[in-house]
């Protein structure tokens, strides 16, 4: 079995875990982490394809996209974290009241 196949399956699993986490987790931080895990899965998928398509060097375009994606995801996650902390400060809530 080729390497990328393992990771590509992993990527799908991570994505599903992430999306499940978003839907099921209660705590803000867990929800945010779940999105990051989702992102991890997606990036893994990209990079696996890059490895698959490697010649003398791995396909650089997915790499570049993943780097971009990671930064974007981190920016979003940081923002989400800021919101979560702000909410906690103001209300003491750690999860969405509607989900309780």
């Amino acid at each position: 079995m080729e390497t990328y196949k393992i990771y590509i399956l992993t990527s799908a699993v991570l994505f599903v875990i992430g999306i499940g986490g978003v839907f099921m987790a209660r705590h803000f931080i867990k929800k945010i982490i779940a999105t990051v895990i989702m992102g991890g899965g997606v990036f893994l998928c990209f990079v696996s394809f890059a490895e698959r398509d490697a010649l003398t060097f791995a396909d650089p375009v997915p790499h570049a996209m993943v780097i971009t994606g990671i930064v974007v995801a981190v920016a979003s996650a940081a923002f989400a974290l800021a919101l979560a902390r702000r909410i906690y400060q103001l209300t003491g809530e750690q999860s969405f009241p509607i989900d309780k």
Partner: protein
Amino acid sequence: MINLPTSSLPAILVGLPILVATLSLFFRSRGKAVVGLLGSLLTAGLALIAFVEVAQLGSVIHILGGWEPPLGILLRMDPLAVVFIGMTALVGVFISLFAWWYFRAQESTNGKFSLFWPLWLFLWAGLNGLFLSNDLFNLFVTIEVIGICAVALAVLSGKTDSLFAGLRYLLAAITGSMAYLFGVALIYGSTGTLDLGLLGQILEPGKTTTFALLVITFGLMVKMAGFPFHFWLPPAHSSALAPVSALLSALVVKGAFYILLRLWAEVFGISLTYAGGQLIGLAGAVAVIWGSWQAFMQTNLKLIIAHSSVAQLGYLLMIFPLLILAPGVVAGSADWLSPAWTAGVYQVMAHAFAKASFFLSAGIIIMAQGHDHKGSLRDLASRMPMTTMAIGIAGVSLIGLPPSGGFFAKWMLLKGVFLSGQLWWAPVILTGSFLTAGYVFMLLRLAFAPARDQEPFRPVPHSLQVVALLLALGSFLIVFPAENLIQFLESSETFGSGIESIMEGGAYGNN
């Protein structure tokens, strides 16, 4: 596509707002506003120039860095894109003007609102970028730009409600983006290209493609608050500041719709089936009914308006079933495609104008009364006739009464429904209109009703009311150039000849 005339305008349309936004950061609150307003006007002017240019040259492209696709990124400004850009510019200018006066009127309360200007310009750049983009990954970046800016704007008021709503919105947006990106990854993996034009040619139907289509659709549906995923919209839109609510509902959600439209039409045409379109249509139909009903049942003005957005976006989804041919229908005979397209475009525009006006009016009312319980509308007709008028006119457009843009959209939609023989959508459209009338006129009824309590009534600058009214009128005025606009759009890649891609599609899974 490479052979199209090139122009530097697409690059400037994205670059300039960001530059101005960056510049504005150096200023303190008043300066930010000045720079921001100037930047808005500048960007709008650019959009106008772009419109003129496309009208003259037809579609233009801009190959970034000189690297042609698939390696590089190409910005494509076709009529459809430029119509969206133009709409953004028009609505954007009005909202900017509104924001200028709105924040000036409230300057003493919070200086933080000046962040509105850079964020809004970033958002604008993101929107322009989105409309121009011809690259799957670039689209992801632009929707992220839009998403972050949109949420940031949504929480600008700093109220607890808006924070909760913002976080919910942000999580939904991230989830949507990630799902979208997953699809992009799979597509890239199976084709090795990201350029929409190339993808449209080489994408093969298959399980992976279908899956990618599904997650992309899901991601975009979340972003545009399509029916089962509308959960974030009402709280987010209703708790934001007035100009922000207007932006979010008028423009931001349309971005996702735009991508969805483009991708379905240009890339995934081959994987679509009639039944799939029907399901999207069904989602839209449920959104129309559910959103309208919810709006009808709300007691707060902004919540009413926000729920109404859910319904109005449902209409947008309802054009999809009309764009996908049933098995056995020949492309040449499908004369309903053009009405359906027009319906989509006009629904976007009409809703943008009307909803922006609506939210701005809500902002005015909140400014005057201090809250937005629908009781605050009482006696509005005599206190603020102009705002009442704006609400009335915008509402009329939402309902789809002639001769508003909303009417035009519904007319075309119904026409498409009739021509295609998919008559089952007609009752939905009408029920939606009917329920919309219910809440719009509930508001108007209150506006004419006598005031119950002697709440303090603060006067609101006239300029704000004028802006709201002008936007509302805009939702009517867009009808007048309709014929030219349709002709203009038909010269577009996607809209006219590009439609063929959908019609030829549908082979897979149809038998």
